[in-house]
């Protein structure tokens, strides 16, 4: 047996804060061998980042750290910043979450890369330059020579993350810590970056710590998995064990809460109720007890240790739960589910065929162009950005239509056009049959606005912190002139409807958690009894266990109130779960459109195929055996107006077509064709 490369023993980290000491990490131990990948998962605030920063020695001096971290035979704790800096970036490298902010804006890519090389070894200028170019080539940046002189702001997020990886790889590290390396990126780019990290690993033989909250990423990359909760590891096992023989209720809950892109059945997701505890003065009890459906009295008397619950055959498997021996495969206890399935509310409209339902929102040939300006003082018009190029769809009562696509493809612009009731040049927007062209100002516009409301992505930013929840929810009511007493009863009713306690209505948003704030946003949108609710990435800022509850709420409200949703998301698993119809958007146009099952089961357009295959599935067996289409390149820009298929520059099908067909792709814009419940815009599909 070889010695582990990294060995962490009883690591504890606490921060002084005004309200008391925050015990962010409370005793974590693991070993990691060269060439292996450890996945660390857990909700926001569970201590994943703090653990990784402690290993890197990047925490502030006022932070208290205890335990032991041995890397490559040396104890890291207690070393000075200077001693550690000889190891950081050399033997030990790190990739950060947000590529947009992790490069210095005022230095060129080349300078930053060369600095990573020369800070650890003496290299001539030319040798450093050559090695840097080589690194950029390895991480797949086109034109590396020229890119060396570029500055970070000239790069997209995916390209910047490649540069960060190149910096991490620069000195052939033995351990790479990746803290949510793909969370900020689109799925197709995420697939590229994960492949790249795997490549970096195989080239350098490094060990990797992959920190993520995405179970799919874990299933794809990790050999061993460590689940963290409230600063402690609660389950630790090889990846197959963890996914198939889960023994700790929190991990079971985490897995049950994820919508699956590969499963059609409409089962409600199983949310984990409640919120993680604050990490100040935790009592000596199982920290999960308040959220655990199978908690017993003994759970409240002592914090369970992480003990081996594995057997001879299966090898090691650690869990921190006093009832883990009672839990059997598939998340069952005494033959019943640890997390009981929530009730499925029957849809009032489920039986009514689509054609017989009234259309609540119709968009015909929507277009939007932005002028492209250049110059600080004298603005010159350089051209136009075609943000939306003629999209059409309709939504019927009780139906959810989802628009999916990568960042910058025009999803939000589409929503804004609808919400602003923008009159279309050669098209129309109809809300409940009324054209926006017919209403201008005044009463008619207000009536129309009641029928369509929006819920925003960011539950923190969307609510005014100085208004009470009651005021926030009642705001749209006041806008249409509802009386005070009437709106007060309505607020209570709405809070109840979205699962909030009406007695909390005089509190401020800061007193609520992310998931609760999103519920406030939903309550506010429902205040005027709209027909259509527009949802802009409503769950993407939430943790999975919380997200599941919000998704279920949306489902339930739709069934109860017969709402129509226009749902914008980049997470295809969520879309598959919640939507009835879906449109895939690429550079301002729909490339595929139809019913959810049709499109997810049998994607036709090459872009949809790539998108679907890029989503990691939270099951290591499926994830590691399936065929994958990895797209090359970044999202093209909306200014390029070639007159051919806008996807051609990245299309995997295009590459294998005979030249005469390729000419058609480049010369002729493919129209959206096919039957109503499944159309696509590719000449050859």
């Amino acid at each position: 047996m070889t010695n582990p490369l990294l060995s962490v023993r009883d690591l504890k980290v606490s921060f002084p804060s005004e309200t008391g000491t925050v015990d962010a990490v409370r005793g974590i131990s693991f070993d990691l061998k060269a060439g292996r990948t450890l996945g660390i998962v857990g909700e926001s605030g569970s201590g994943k980042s703090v653990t990784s920063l402690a290993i890197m020695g990047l925490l502030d001096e006022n932070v208290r750290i205890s335990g032991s971290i041995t890397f490559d035979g040396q104890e890291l704790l207690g070393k000075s910043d200077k001693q550690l800096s000889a190891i950081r970036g050399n033997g030990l490298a790190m990739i950060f979450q947000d590529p947009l902010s992790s490069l210095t804006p005022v230095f060129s890519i080349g300078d930053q890369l060369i600095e990573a090389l020369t800070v650890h070894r003496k290299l001539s200028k030319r040798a450093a330059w050559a090695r840097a170019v080589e690194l950029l080539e390895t991480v797949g940046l086109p034109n590396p020579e020229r890119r060396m002189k570029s500055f970070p702001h000239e790069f997209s997020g995916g390209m910047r993350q490649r540069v960060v990886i190149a910096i991490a790889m620069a000195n052939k590290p033995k351990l790479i810590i990746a803290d949510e390396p793909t969370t900020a990126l689109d799925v197709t780019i995420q697939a590229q970056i994960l492949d790249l990290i795997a490549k970096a690993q195989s080239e350098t033989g490094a060990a990797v710590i992959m920190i993520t909250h995405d179970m799919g990423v874990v299933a794809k990359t990790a050999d061993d998995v460590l689940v963290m909760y409230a600063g402690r590891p609660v389950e630790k096992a090889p990846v197959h064990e963890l996914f198939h023989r889960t023994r700790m209720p929190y991990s079971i809950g985490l897995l049950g809460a994820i919508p699956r892109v590969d499963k059609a059945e409409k089962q409600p997701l199983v949310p984990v109720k409640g919120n993680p505890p604050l990490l100040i003065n935790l009592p000596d009890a199982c920290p999960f007890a308040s959220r655990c459906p199978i908690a017993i009295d003994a759970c409240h008397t002592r914090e369970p240790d992480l003990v081996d619950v594995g057997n001879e055959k299966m090898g090691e498997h650690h869990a921190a739960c006093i009832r883990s021996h009672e839990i059997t495969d598939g998340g069952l206890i005494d033959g019943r589910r640890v997390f009981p399935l929530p009730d499925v509310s029957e849809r009032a409209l489920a039986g009514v065929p689509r054609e017989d339902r009234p259309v609540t929102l119709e968009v015909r040939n929507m277009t939007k162009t932005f002028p492209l300006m250049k110059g600080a003082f004298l603005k010159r018009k350089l051209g136009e950005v075609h943000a939306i190029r003629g999209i059409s769809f309709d939504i019927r009562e009780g139906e959810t239509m989802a628009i999916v696509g990568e960042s910058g493809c025009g999803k939000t612009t589409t929503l804004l056009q609808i919400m602003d009731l923008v009159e279309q040049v050669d098209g129309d927007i109809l809300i409940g049959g009324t054209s926006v062209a017919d209403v201008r100002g005044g009463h008619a516009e207000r009536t129309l606005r009641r029928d369509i409301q929006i819920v925003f992505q960011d539950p923190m930013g969307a609510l005014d912190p100085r208004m009470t929840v009651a005021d926030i929810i009642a705001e749209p009511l006041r806008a249409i002139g509802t009386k005070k007493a009437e709106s007060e009863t309505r607020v209570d009713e709405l809070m109840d409807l979205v699962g909030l306690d009406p007695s909390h209505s005089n509190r401020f948003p800061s007193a609520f958690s992310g998931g609760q704030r999103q519920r406030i946003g939903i309550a506010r949108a429902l205040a005027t009894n709209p027909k259509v609710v527009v949802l802009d990435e409503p769950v993407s800022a939430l943790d999975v266990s919380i997200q599941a509850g919000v998704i279920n709420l949306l489902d339930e409200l739709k069934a109860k109130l017969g709402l129509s949703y226009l749902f914008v998301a980049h997470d295809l698993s969520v879309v598959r779960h919640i939507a009835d119809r879906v449109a895939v958007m690429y550079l301002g146009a729909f490339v595929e459109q139809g019913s959810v099952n049709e499109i997810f089961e049998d994607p036709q357009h090459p872009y949809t195929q790539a998108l679907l295959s890029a989503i990691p599935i939270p099951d290591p067996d499926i994830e590691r055996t399936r065929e994958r289409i990895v797209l090359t390149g970044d999202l093209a820009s909306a200014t390029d107006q070639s007159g051919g298929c806008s996807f051609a520059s990245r299309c995997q099908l295009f590459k294998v077509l005979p030249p005469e067909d390729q000419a058609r792709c480049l010369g002729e814009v493919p129209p959206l064709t096919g039957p109503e419940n499944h159309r696509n815009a590719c000449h050859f599909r």
Partner: protein
Amino acid sequence: MIVVATNLTYFLAWGFLDPRNNYVGRRPPLSEDQVVQLLQPRNLSDTVSLLERWWNWFSGVIFRWDWGVSPVGQSVNDQVAYRMWVSAELVLGATILATVLGIALGVYTASRQYKIADRIGQATSIITMNINIVVAALGIVLLAIGFNNMVGTTVFFVTGSASPDVTGFFPIIIDALQHLILPTVALVIIGYAGTHFLQRSLLLDNINADYVRTARAKGLTKGQAIRKHALRTSLIPVATQVAFTIPTVFMGAILTESIFGWNGMGRYFLETIAKNDIHGTVAIAAFGAVLTAIGALLADIAVVVLDPRVRVS
């Protein structure tokens, strides 16, 4: 801009100053004719219409670069040409020193946020920022005199910008420094704190930036990462601010120059006002406008030097 501002000052100056007042109360009293005779050739007599006076003055400036003469007939050009350098010596030195000191202190205290060094630095700066220049200057003069007495020779001169009878290259430089030190120190003391606070807060914003963490993850020590990565980005607004304060510092030198008996622009400004020297006042205003323009230009240059993103686009 400069031209407009200068011309505006010309008219304003005529509104507030009257050269005729110089002769009021003279003994023996001058007759009206005598006064006009004295003033008219100097283009300062209100018997000529304002427009004509203005045109005489303005055409002189643009065609002959002649800024006119004072009520007693001294050429404004000569005065400014000499005093400009006297002031520049003082102001430039003080600005540079105050900036360097402010930035250095900003960096030092920011990297030790909330530690004793930071708190002491902050407290000192708050005090110095609120000291009046007169108080600071007098205090320094007293200290210097005490020091001179202690060592027995005049190390620091408390008045004037140079001794008249010094010759030779090195002696002149040493003499200049001996004169320069005290007023410079006075200006630096009251001027550095603004830069210190600005630099400190900007750097603190940047110290926790992700890219500083990336730099440390590469293998730079915390100090190196701050100096190289955080400082560069936080210097940009500081440079802009400093460049724009140059005219302010110049005017702040008014009192300093008077206290230390320097014949610089600041003192000239006081004198011209006292003597109803319209042409001198206008020339100083023009000078101020030019300084502002230079300051703006320097700020732009600094930004371009520090921020390559501007260069690229």
